[in-house]
């Protein structure tokens, strides 16, 4: 089993390297992180935190948009594309299970994502440290940002596989992926915001809103990083939004989503007739 999974992951990695996906994803992350770190360096003095702390807060916001997008771009074609090319039919005549195929692809895509995230945030973090100092606390926040971004990516990779299995064609899968991205990352928050304004600080705001916020993996990621350490929360201004939210809710959402959606993707893949 391990041999087959690693064979698929190895081939996928090679493909990602050859078609420049690793390069594109990593340079995107480095570029945006550096830009945000230095354009967002103004409030350090006012808030009394070091530059790296502010940088982590900015990069968290960046990740909420960019990581799901990268993950969906990598995964939307994973199944539908292979069905279209006829490659899935051939692979499935080999003694490899659909689950092994899915895990193999997931492993390779997680490696690509980790490279992009750790390099991108690492380089930006290093630059912030050199330019404006860092502390043990802000370094921990950076590390926390990195691995939780990969976990966030896993959720959206799994969503991409599920969409790719359900879609009839690669282009339909791409459309669905964009739709999911807009829904989870943009519209969801706008909807919540609208509800907050309408509610005006009532029951919804105090009880339901925090749970709904945690239920979205992208928002769970945001809360996890922005309210994780007091200083980052201060730098982000999210400190007040999540009072009344139990600590476990965010973790359950962050780790539960990738596993649940991966199981869903496995079910969807089972029904695919290559």
């Amino acid at each position: 089993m391990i041999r087959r999974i690693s064979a698929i992951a190895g081939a996928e990695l090679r493909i990602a390297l050859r078609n420049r996906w690793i390069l594109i994803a990593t340079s995107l992350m480095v570029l945006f992180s550096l830009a945000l770190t230095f354009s967002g360096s103004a409030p350090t003095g006012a808030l009394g935190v070091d530059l790296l702390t502010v940088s982590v807060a900015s990069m968290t916001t960046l990740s909420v948009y960019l990581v799901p997008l990268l993950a969906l771009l990598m995964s939307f074609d994973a199944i539908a594309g292979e069905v279209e090319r006829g490659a899935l039919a051939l692979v499935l005549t080999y003694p490899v299970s659909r689950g092994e195929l899915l895990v193999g692809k997931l492993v390779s895509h997680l490696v690509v994502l980790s490279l992009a995230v750790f390099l991108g945030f690492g380089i930006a973090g290093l630059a912030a440290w050199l330019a404006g100092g860092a502390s043990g606390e802000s370094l921990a926040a950076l590390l926390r940002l990195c691995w939780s971004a990969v976990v966030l990516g896993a959720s959206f990779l799994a969503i991409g596989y599920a969409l790719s299995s359900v879609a009839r064609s690669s282009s339909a899968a791409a459309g669905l992926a964009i739709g999911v991205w807009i829904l989870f990352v943009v519209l969801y928050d706008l909807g919540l915001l609208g509800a907050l304004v309408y509610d005006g600080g009532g029951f919804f705001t105090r009880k339901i809103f925090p749970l709904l916020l945690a239920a979205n993996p992208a928002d769970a990621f945001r809360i996890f990083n922005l309210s994780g350490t007091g200083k980052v929360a201060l730098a982000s201004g999210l400190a007040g939004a999540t009072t009344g939210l139990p600590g476990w809710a965010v973790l359950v959402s962050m780790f539960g989503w990738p596993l649940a959606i991966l199981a869903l993707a496995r079910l969807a893949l089972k029904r695919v007739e290559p």
Partner: protein
Amino acid sequence: MAAAAEDKDDMLEVRNVVKRQGPRETVRDVSLSLRAGERLALLGHNGAGKTTLIRMILGLTRIDGGSISVFGNRPGDGRARRITSYLPESVVFHKSLTGLEQLALFARLAGQPVKACAPLLERVGLSDAANRRVGAYSKGMRQRLGLAQVLLGRPRLALLDEPTSGLDPISRHDFYGIVDDMAAQGTAVLVSSHALTELEARTNRIAILRAGRLVAMDSLDNLRRRAGLPIRIHVRAADGHADEVAGSLGGSRMNGCRVELSCTADQKMARLKAITALGDAVADVDVVPPSLEDLYRHYAAGEAGS
């Protein structure tokens, strides 16, 4: 293993298989069997159900009726997959991988040593291109790479779906050479094609599908005999004798000097005698036996309402 015990030699046993797509039956009540070392050509027009049948044998498509056994295993289960290999009609490998890398991936999936790959590439004539990316391969080269993965681990059943469509005649010939080698080593080989040519005729048996139904399955000789297609005789009359020749032989007159006759195999000698008896009135005679194409058309297109 109950099915295998019945007949140890039957690698593949297809019984009364049915496939429905919506209200239409795309494969209707097809039965066939294939023994170790046997080569079977599966012929039929596009849409006759060849690919669907092959996909059902592979377990890629659900069966709606009947049963398939691959050496006693259900199609698509682990053991069946280990002993079966498949060449899809159009192989689209990932263009960023090299031929060797693509084959190595298949070897790992099949549980075969990766070092087996280089000799296989040599066997199909791809040694020089082994380290080039598949994206730069011609259609023929991709087809050869596809054949190389069929040979991985000496399968006991090989299903080749239109393997030679789009290949030049020399490649086609090489291709069937490798098929013959596989059969000689005991692999049961099923080759589908949309035509009957010299190469398909070299297989042990020929099965012909028409609109999802198996209309014939036999050796070439028996198919020929059963079809009983007429032999055509072209007679060219000497100048000025055309009417005389046409009148006495009773054939149809084509133009100024040609007369066409047709007869069955056992009437052939009698007809030739009658022609030679006309002496100088006949300038030339051609005897044209039914071609492979005629034979295929007879079965596959349902000519003569068989």
